[in-house]
């Protein structure tokens, strides 16, 4: 159209179109679907198994295995942001004078042409009527601008002019929360830490970068506990943690799911748990069955402890807890091992792997040993995060809700009431109003004002 346009002008024009907004939103909506269907951040063999080599190449080219961090997805978000900024500047520069006028003015003719205009006649002196209407308008709407001639009065009042800013609040909230997300991804981290009960650590492991990050203090896990409902489903995971700084215990606190510990900008969440692999149990309850009289008895034993079995069955010594119990060349994993010294001096080695409770029956001796209960050590799986951007995101959230409320449910409304004297105690009155949105609501308001005046 205009050949004199420079390239920056054209770029500006490109970014200030609402069409661009709509296309970008459509692209964001449609492409987001891929990431919900295709596994994200998986291992390459998982994709190869599901999609084959050809499609896996396509997935890799477009980063569909981590698409929400792919360059093209981020580019769409950047385009949306530039679009928002440019549109807002463009529109604000034209609407600024409407929102913040030096002096509020109105055009009575415009109001006379409005469809919602209601006119009727009142048997009241026009000055009294004008007075009443002015009071009503001041109360319901706001400051009244009154223009009076000898036998006619025009009164104008408005409210909610500032609500025209609502839409800019919504759009800036989007920028604010995306900025928070950016700050979080630049200066924050998300790490894991598995702590055995009793163990202390001062760094979290970051899976993505396969590195560790120092926390600036140490965390010791004093205790971990799972509670179950009587239905067998877990009811609560709880870790008791002590924070240690400069070699001194600062404080001890419990964390549960939904109740993290936040300390010095670092958040510690209860995330998972499991049986400890490194710290070994030192006490367990054993049940020993005498096959001759079918009587069984329980013994609580510490590692290294020796007991005399009843009925001259011999002496049992609990030797150790092994992580990899070797049985004829096979690794049966965690097991207690002990020695049974018979009365006749015969020595028998006894292994009690945890995975096979009735393992000792295979020994075919006079006694059967089983591990009944053990003081199992757990580890707690903590998720450790730092996100300095989260407050920007939350501020964005609050602004977005406020902005949406203002934009959708509030409006800039202007009302005009015109009263003309027809006879001494008779006046014609007409009411009309305009708004920047929601003509239906405006009609209802005009009705209600009219009824209020008629009721007087």
């Amino acid at each position: 159209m205009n050949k004199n346009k420079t390239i920056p002008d054209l770029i500006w024009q490109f970014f200030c179109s609402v069409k661009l907004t709509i296309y970008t939103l459509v692209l964001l909506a449609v492409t987001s679907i891929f990431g919900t269907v295709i596994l994200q951040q998986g291992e390459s063999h998982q994709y190869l198994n599901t999609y084959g080599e050809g499609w896996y190449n396509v997935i890799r080219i477009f980063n569909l295995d981590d698409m929400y961090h792919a360059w093209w997805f981020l580019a769409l978000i950047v385009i949306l942001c530039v679009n928002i900024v440019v549109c807002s500047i463009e529109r604000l520069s034209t609407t600024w004078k409407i929102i913040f006028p030096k002096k509020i003015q109105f055009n009575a003719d415009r109001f006379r042409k409005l469809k919602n205009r209601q006119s009727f006649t009142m048997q009241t002196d026009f000055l009294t009527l004008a007075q009443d209407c002015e009071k009503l308008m001041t109360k319901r709407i706001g400051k009244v601008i009154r223009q009076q001639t000898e036998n006619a009065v025009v009164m104008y009042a408005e409210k909610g002019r500032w609500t025209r800013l609502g839409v800019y609040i919504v759009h800036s909230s989007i920028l604010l929360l995306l900025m928070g997300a950016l700050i979080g991804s630049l200066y924050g981290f998300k790490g894991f830490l598995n702590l055995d009960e009793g163990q202390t650590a001062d760094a979290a492991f970051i899976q993505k970068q396969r590195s560790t990050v120092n926390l600036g203090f140490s965390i010791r896990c004093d205790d971990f506990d799972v509670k179950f409902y009587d239905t067998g489903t877990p009811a609560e995971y709880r870790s008791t943690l002590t924070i240690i700084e400069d070699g001194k215990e600062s404080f001890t606190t419990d964390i549960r799911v939904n109740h993290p510990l936040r300390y010095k900008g670092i958040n510690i969440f209860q995330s998972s748990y499991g049986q400890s692999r490194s710290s070994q149990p030192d006490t367990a309850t054993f049940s020993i069955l005498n096959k001759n009289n079918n009587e069984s008895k329980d013994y609580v034993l510490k590692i290294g402890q020796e007991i005399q079995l009843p009925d001259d069955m011999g002496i049992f010594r609990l030797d150790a807890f092994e992580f990899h119990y070797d049985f004829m060349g096979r690794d049966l994993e965690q097991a207690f091992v002990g020695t049974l010294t018979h009365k006749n001096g015969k020595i028998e080695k006894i292994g009690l792997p945890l995975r096979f409770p009735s393992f000792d029956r295979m020994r075919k001796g006079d006694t059967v040993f089983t591990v009944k209960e053990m003081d199992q050590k757990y580890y707690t799986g903590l998720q450790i995060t730092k996100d300095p951007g989260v407050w920007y995101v939350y501020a964005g959230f609050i602004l977005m809700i406020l902005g949406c409320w203002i934009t959708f449910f509030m409006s800039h409304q202007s009302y005009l009431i015109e009263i003309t004297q027809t006879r001494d105690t008779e006046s014609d009155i007409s009411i009309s109003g305009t708004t920047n949105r929601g003509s239906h609501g405006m009609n209802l308001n005009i009705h209600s004002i009219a009824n209020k005046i008629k009721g007087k």
Partner: protein
Amino acid sequence: MTSSFALASATFIYALAAVFYIGSFAFKKQILAKIGFIILVVGCLDNTAGIILRWIESYQMGYGRAPFSNMYESLVFFSWTMAVLYIFVELKYKERLIGVFVSPLIFLAIAYASFDPNMNTKILPLLPALKSNWLIAHVVTCFLGYAGFAVSFGFSIMYFIKPKDNSATSVFAKLPSLELIDELIYQMIVFGFLFLTIGIITGSVWANSAWGKYWSWDPKETWSLITWFVYAIFLHLRMMRGWQGNKLAWVSIIGFMAVLFTYFGVNNLLSGLHSYG
């Protein structure tokens, strides 16, 4: 009365309300719609009683939790939010026939909860992750949003059926004017959009307090964002591009499809954090 009795009877009362609304439409009798409205209010009260009783029963069982934690409970609550919103709209706009396409939706949601043989209707204790004050805020706001979109969907269907020619005399001509339907669709979407926004935000704040991440592109999260995008497109098309009528009603229908997928599709077809409802 037990909660299961209250909710089962609410299902039938809602069915009856829908029958009256459809009857009023088919036989062009306003009085039937009036009766339908009264029945709908009764059904909604029964539905309310059912939800409150279920809440009390959970305390008696020792679990003590809000009844918003599985598919069954969410469907029952979905019916309730739709019914409350619709009653409000009918009272405000004083149009009766608009219930024709909404009352069946209210019935369908609770009927799915009541009659699907795979539905687990037992009151079960909460998983540790769900034990949070955010549960109520998140579920209530999300379902108010869904209800807004569902009601707007009902109105969009009405828009297609209403004859564009004013002189038409078919049963459909009785429906409110196209301008009013258009306005109703818009109002419901604005309501839904605000509450979906708050729902996503409360969910996000909750996720941050439970897992330390306010957004993790979980399928449910992503689909709720897709839904949000679709309705954001709707709002921009209407306010900035001047779209109206059929074209816009289509966008509203696409939006509701996204809602349905977010609600049911994600749970049944995809995996993620929201597998419980």
